[in-house]
């Protein structure tokens, strides 16, 4: 290659080309230090979760609005008894099938109960069914997925188990469980948890498989860290972002499943109400009293839509490569 000694003589030549006000070595060091500090202050740091959320709110207005809608819905559902003076289960045959009015914002149903009140109270079931089985099924799924991905001997067994669950038509499986155990709200939780874990397990497994090959996990293994510690301390935190997204997107599925079960008569049992049950109770009256059908459907639609928008928005900022 070319003449590097020529290059090395640069310094010598430069000494001749005197710059009028040369730095003393100390001065230069200081100037460089200042510039570098300045630079460091502007170094792009990896965004923290909070910053990512903030940027989502700024850029994805729909997702931000969805978060607000969900917060409002959660609030009015939780404080339903403070917000409405009607008793959700009070039958008043004098006021059956009334259209929406000032007294009854969403009208009344076939037993004269105020539909708006029943939507608020029914939301409690739908909200619980959205959150609790999803949490349980995801916890099961996380453990199963990590074990399956990390402990190779158990991989085949767990994944076949997941295959079996996924091979069932989920509504039929849930119906069978509900029939076997009896139709109570607790059993809805159990039925939906039994079905939901398999999908999570698959995703966590594939992430574990790629994470276990990464240097920091190998380093931990090299230092003799125990299996379970590696899984929960090193692998799990790295799966968390996509799990948050998955959680948001799994809740609507659970809500819709409960609605379906209620429609088939093995979900929430009267006189309790859930949105799904309210819609299915409207079946006979859908033509004459469409408000019985429309308002609970709207409640489901708004909540599920908001969750989906929020989930999509979260995915875009947290984990852009994840696919459902």
């Amino acid at each position, binding site marked *: 290659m070319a003449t590097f000694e020529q290059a090395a003589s640069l310094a010598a030549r430069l000494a001749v080309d005197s710059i009028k006000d040369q730095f003393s070595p100390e001065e230069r060091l200081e100037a460089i230090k200042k510039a570098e500090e300045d630079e460091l202050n502007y170094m792009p740091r990896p965004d923290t979760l909070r910053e990512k959320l903030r940027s989502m709110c700024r850029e994805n207005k729909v997702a931000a609005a969805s978060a607000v809608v969900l917060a409002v819905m959660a609030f009015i559902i939780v404080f339903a008894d403070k917000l409405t003076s009607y008793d959700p289960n009070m039958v008043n045959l004098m006021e059956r099938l009334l259209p929406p009015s000032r007294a009854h914002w969403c009208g009344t149903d076939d037993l004269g109960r105020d539909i708006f009140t029943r939507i608020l109270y029914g939301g409690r079931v739908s909200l619980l069914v959205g959150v609790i089985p999803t949490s349980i099924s995801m916890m099961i799924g996380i453990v199963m997925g990590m074990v399956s991905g990390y402990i190779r001997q158990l991989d085949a067994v767990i994944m076949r188990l997941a295959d079996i669950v996924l091979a069932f038509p989920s509504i039929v499986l849930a119906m069978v469980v509900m029939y076997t155990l009896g139709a109570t709200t607790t059993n809805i939780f159990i039925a939906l948890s039994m079905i939901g874990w398999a999908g999570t397990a698959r995703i966590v497994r594939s992430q574990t498989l790629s994470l276990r090959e990464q240097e920091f996990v190998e380093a931990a293994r090299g230092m003799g860290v125990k299996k379970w510690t590696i899984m929960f301390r090193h692998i799990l935190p790295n799966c968390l972002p996509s799990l948050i997204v998955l959680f948001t997107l799994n809740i609507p599925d659970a809500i819709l499943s409960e609605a379906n079960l209620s429609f088939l008569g093995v979900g929430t049992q009267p006189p309790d109400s859930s949105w799904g049950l309210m819609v299915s109770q409207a079946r006979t009256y859908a033509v004459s009293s469409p408000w019985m059908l429309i308002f609970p*459907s709207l409640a489901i639609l708004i909540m599920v839509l908001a969750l989906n928008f929020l989930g999509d928005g979260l995915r875009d900022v947290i984990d852009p490569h994840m696919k459902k």
Partner: protein
Amino acid sequence: MLKYITKRILVTIPVLIGVVFLIFVMLSVVPGDPLTVMMGEKVKVDVIERLTKSMHLDDPWYVQFAWYLWNALHGDFGTSYKLMRSVSSLIANAFPKTLMLAVTAAALSWVIGIPAGIISAVKKNSLVDHLFMGFALCGVSLPAFSVGMLLQNIFNGILPVSGFASPMHLILPALVLGWNAAGTIARLTRSSLLEVLEDDYIRTARAKGVAPLSMIINHALKNSLLPVITMMAIQISSLLSGAVITETLFSIPGIGRLAVDAINGRDMPLLQGTVIFTTVVIIGGNLAADILYCVADPRIRVEGGK
């Protein structure tokens, strides 16, 4: 590729046995004596004894399971308690209806979903995109029976809203199922196409001077439809396994309806039969999805890849 497919088929066998086993166990703990369900309360003791023997009901559960498996392999899923007909013939009767509904709904969802997804991706963040995606999201966000009831309400008197007598009867249930499926397909097509458009070989094509439209049709679409094909196969198998809700709502005597009737009537053989049938359909669909993917993707199809 053949090796992969063979392996894939072999893996489904334990899954199938597991499904049969699971459903068998779950149903055997359901309260209620099958013979009481079948014959009512007042039956002669000797009749019960004879039937118990012939149905292997006094054998331990694993013997019952083995008998069941053996018979199932021969296409015999037993006799429905309630309807007193062989489960196989009931399924054979119901399946064509489900098949027609599934095919109509799937066709509808592809014809609408794929173009909508492509247009949305090409016109990303435009009004059209937002409209299409909003419509798609509504399709996956509403419970099927809400949509169904709404449609029944709107088209009451214009179209048949219940039963299964003519092709006209198919329109509304197919719309309900198709909207949901089209929503999923459109969203997947859009996101997959957008992802592919970021790939390096799209840049190469642009550097060649390929026009934007030809770029999407000749370069991006083939790659982006790979995951969509998988989704289509999975979807059609889930439609074939019986749309429980839609069939119940529209009183279509298909597979899904059969399963619901079986559960409501505590008709164990019928329930076992339908559930096993539907799982086989779903497993078959997933298998087909995998094989389709292999065939469509030269990276797997052609040997010599790394």
